[in-house]
C-alpha cells in the first residue's frame, strides 16, 4: 500500500488536429512528492497538467488516482476525480462575478453540498491560510495579480485535494508580485501536499523539487533530482536550458 | 393534394404579385435610408451650428417611436393638414426616414471609432476637410458600420410588411386577403413566412458577400 502512488500517469498521448502534443508520457506522484515540469514553451506542460485533471481527455493512456483508474465515460466519476485533484491556472481563472470568499465557498456549496455557513467558515479559514482574510469581500477586479493567485490556491485547497497541479502559477504576475505566491506555495509544500508544478522560475524549481522533469516536443526527455540535472557544469539539456533562461535575464 | 392545389393555384400567384410590390418597396427605401443615414450620421458627429443637435433629435425621435405610428401619421395624419400621400409613397417615405435614423446610429459609431489621427494625417498631406472626409474617413466608417447597416436592411425587409397597414398590397397584404377570403390562415401565412425567409436568407448571404469583398486585412479587429 505504502508504494501506490497517489497519482499515476501511464503512456498518455494527445494530439490536436493530427499534431502530437503529448507522446506517451508517464509519471508518478507519491505522497508528499513535489515534481516540477520545466522546458520550452509549447513543450506540452500545460496539456499534460490538464490531462492529469481530465480537463483535457487524453487520446490514449491511463490515469490512476490512489491506484484506481478513472472511467472517463462516467461523468460522475470524472467530477469526483476532479474534486480530489486541485488545479492552479497561470491566468488564475477566478470567477469574476464572485467575491474572494464566494470564489472559495462556491464549490463547497454546489459540489460538496455544504451549507452556506459551513462553506463560508471553511473558505475564511483557507483565505486566512494564504494571508487574505482581510480581502474576503473584495471582487477579483479589486485584487492584485498576486492576491488573485493566492485566492485561487485557497479555492483549490478548500476542496481537500489529494494532489495539487500548478500550471506556471507565477508567470502572469509582475515580478514584484511573484514573491507572495511563491511563499504560499513553499508553505504548502512544507505542509506535505503532493504537487506537480510547471514553472520557468529555476530558483524556485531547484528549491522545491524532488524531481525535475524536462519536457520538450511532447516528451519528458530528462528527469532527475535538481542536484543531478543542475550540478555545476552538468551536460544536461536541463542545465543548458537554465543557462539560456539566465542569459535572457530570467531569474 | 387539395392543399397543394390551393397553394400553387391560388396562394402563389397572389404572393408572387405581392412580392414584386414588396421588392419595389424595399429597394428604394433601403437606398434612400442608407443615403440619408450617412448624411444624418455624419451631421451627428461633425455637424455645427445646431445641425448636430437637430440630427440627434431626428434619430432619437424616429428610433424612439414605433414605425407603425410613423406610417399612420404619414398616411392618415398628413391629410389633416392637406397633404395626401399614395399608400406606396407613404410607405417608402416612412421606411426611408425611419431606417435612416437607425443607419445614422451605425455610421456615427463608425465615425467615432475612426481615430482622430486619420483626419490629422490626411490634413497633413494637404487634403481639405471635405476631401479627407470623402476619401479617408467615410470609407473607413462605412466599413465599420457595414455589419450594423446590413442588419438594419434585414429589419427593413421584415418591416416592409407594415405597408399592408397603410393599404399597400404587398406580400403580407396579399396573404391577408386570401386568408380572410378562404379562412386558411395557417397554410397562407406559412407560405408568406416562407417568402420572407427566402428574401431574408438571400439578402443575408449577399450582405455577407459584400462584407467579405470590402474586408481589409487586419482592419476592424482592433
Amino acid at each position: 500500500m505504502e508504494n501506490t502512488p497517489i497519482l499515476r500517469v501511464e503512456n498518455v498521448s494527445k494530439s490536436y488536429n493530427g499534431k502530437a502534443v503529448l507522446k506517451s508520457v508517464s509519471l508518478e506522484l507519491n505522497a508528499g512528492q513535489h515534481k516540477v515540469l520545466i522546458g520550452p514553451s509549447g513543450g506540452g506542460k500545460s496539456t499534460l497538467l490538464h490531462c492529469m485533471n481530465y480537463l483535457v481527455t487524453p487520446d490514449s493512456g491511463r490515469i490512476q488516482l490512489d491506484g484506481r483508474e478513472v472511467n472517463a465515460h462516467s461523468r460522475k466519476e470524472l467530477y469526483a476525480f476532479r474534486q480530489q485533484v486541485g488545479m492552479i491556472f497561470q491566468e488564475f481563472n477566478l470567477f469574476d462575478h464572485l467575491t474572494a470568499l464566494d470564489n472559495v465557498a462556491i464549490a463547497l456549496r454546489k459540489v460538496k453540498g455544504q451549507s452556506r455557513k459551513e462553506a463560508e467558515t471553511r473558505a475564511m479559514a483557507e483565505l486566512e491560510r494564504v494571508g487574505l482574510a482581510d480581502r474576503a469581500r473584495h471582487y477579483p477586479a479589486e485584487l492584485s495579480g498576486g492576491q488573485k493567485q493566492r485566492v485561487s490556491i485557497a479555492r483549490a485547497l478548500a476542496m481537500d485535494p489529494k494532489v495539487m497541479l500548478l500550471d506556471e502559477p507565477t508567470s502572469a504576475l509582475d515580478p514584484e508580485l511573484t514573491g507572495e505566491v511563491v511563499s504560499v506555495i513553499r508553505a504548502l509544500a512544507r505542509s506535505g501536499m503532493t504537487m506537480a508544478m510547471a514553472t520557468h522560475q529555476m530558483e524556485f524549481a531547484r528549491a522545491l523539487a524532488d524531481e525535475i522533469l524536462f519536457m520538450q516536443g511532447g516528451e519528458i526527455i530528462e528527469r532527475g533530482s535538481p542536484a543531478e540535472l543542475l550540478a555545476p557544469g552538468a551536460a544536461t539539456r536541463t542545465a543548458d536550458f537554465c543557462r539560456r533562461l539566465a542569459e535572457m535575464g530570467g531569474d | 393534394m387539395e392543399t397543394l392545389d390551393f397553394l400553387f393555384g391560388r396562394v402563389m400567384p397572389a404572393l408572387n404579385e405581392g412580392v414584386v410590390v414588396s421588392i419595389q418597396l424595399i429597394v428604394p427605401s433601403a437606398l434612400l435610408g442608407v443615403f440619408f443615414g450617412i448624411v444624418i450620421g455624419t451631421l451627428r458627429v461633425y455637424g455645427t451650428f445646431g445641425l448636430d443637435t437637430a440630427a440627434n433629435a431626428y434619430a432619437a425621435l424616429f428610433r424612439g417611436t414605433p414605425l407603425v405610428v410613423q406610417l399612420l401619421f404619414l398616411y392618415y395624419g398628413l391629410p389633416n393638414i392637406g397633404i395626401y400621400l399614395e399608400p406606396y409613397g407613404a410607405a417608402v417615405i416612412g421606411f426611408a426616414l425611419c431606417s435612416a435614423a437607425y443607419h445614422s446610429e451605425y455610421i456615427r459609431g463608425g465615425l467615432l471609432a475612426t481615430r482622430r489621427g486619420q483626419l490629422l494625417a490626411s490634413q497633413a498631406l494637404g487634403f481639405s476637410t471635405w476631401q479627407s472626409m470623402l476619401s479617408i474617413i467615410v470609407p473607413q466608417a462605412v466599413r465599420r458600420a457595414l455589419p450594423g447597416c446590413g442588419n438594419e436592411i434585414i429589419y427593413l425587409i421584415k418591416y416592409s410588411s407594415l405597408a399592408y397597414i397603410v393599404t399597400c398590397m404587398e406580400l403580407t397584404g396579399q396573404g391577408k386577403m386570401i386568408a380572410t377570403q378562404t379562412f386558411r390562415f395557417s397554410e397562407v401565412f406559412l407560405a408568406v413566412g416562407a417568402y420572407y425567409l427566402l428574401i431574408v436568407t438571400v439578402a443575408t448571404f449577399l450582405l455577407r458577400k459584400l462584407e467579405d469583398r470590402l474586408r481589409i486585412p487586419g482592419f476592424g479587429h482592433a
Partner: protein
Amino acid sequence: MQHTLDVLIEAVPFLVGGVGTTLLIVIGGMLLGLVLGVPLAVGQVYGNAVTRRAAGLYVWFFRGIPILVLLFLFYYGLFHLIGLNLGAVAAAILVLGMTSAAYQSQIFRGSILSLSQGQFRAASALGMSNAQAIATIILPQALRLSLPGWSNEYSIMLKDSALVFVLGATEIMARTHFVASREYQHMPLYITAALLYFLLTWAGVRSLRTFERKVAIRGYGRT
C-alpha cells in the same frame, strides 16, 4: 383648433388607459423571451450537433419572418390548429415572446462566448458538473453582460407591441386608431401616441440602467 383640444383632453386618459395592456404585453413577452432564450443560447454554445441545429433553426425561423406575419400565422392559424383559443393579449405575449427568444438567445450567446474559457475550466477543475458550471458560473456573468442588449430588446419589443392592434388587443395603438378614426383627428392623436411610446421607451431604458447598476459587480464589466 378648439375641437382638436377637446378631443385631445378626452382622448389622453383613454390612450393612457392602454399603457397597462401595452406594458403587460411587453413585460410578458420579455420574460417569455428570457425563459426560452437562455436554453436556446446554452443549446447553441454547449449543445451537441442536434441541439445546435434545432436551436439554429428556431432562431432562423423567428428572425426571418416579420412580426406581423407571425401574429397572423399564430393567432388566426396555428394556435387554433392545436386547439389553443387565446385572447389577443395572451396570443401577442406568446408570439412576441417566442420571437424575442430568438433575438435574446443571440444576445446571451454573444455574452457567453465573450467570457474566457478559463471560467468554465476552473469550475470543472473544482468538480462541478457542466450544468452546475453553467448555472452558477457562466450564466450569472453572461446575464449581467447581456443587460445592455436586453434594454435594446425592450425598446424594440415596445415598438413591436404597437402592431398587436391588428389582432384587436386594446393597447395604446388600438385606442389611438379608434379615436383618430372616429373624430377624424389623426395627426394630433398619432403625435400623442408617439409621445407616449417615446416616454415609455425612455422610462424603460432608464429603469433597466438602474437595475444594471444595482446588480453590477465592482470593477467588473466590459472594458
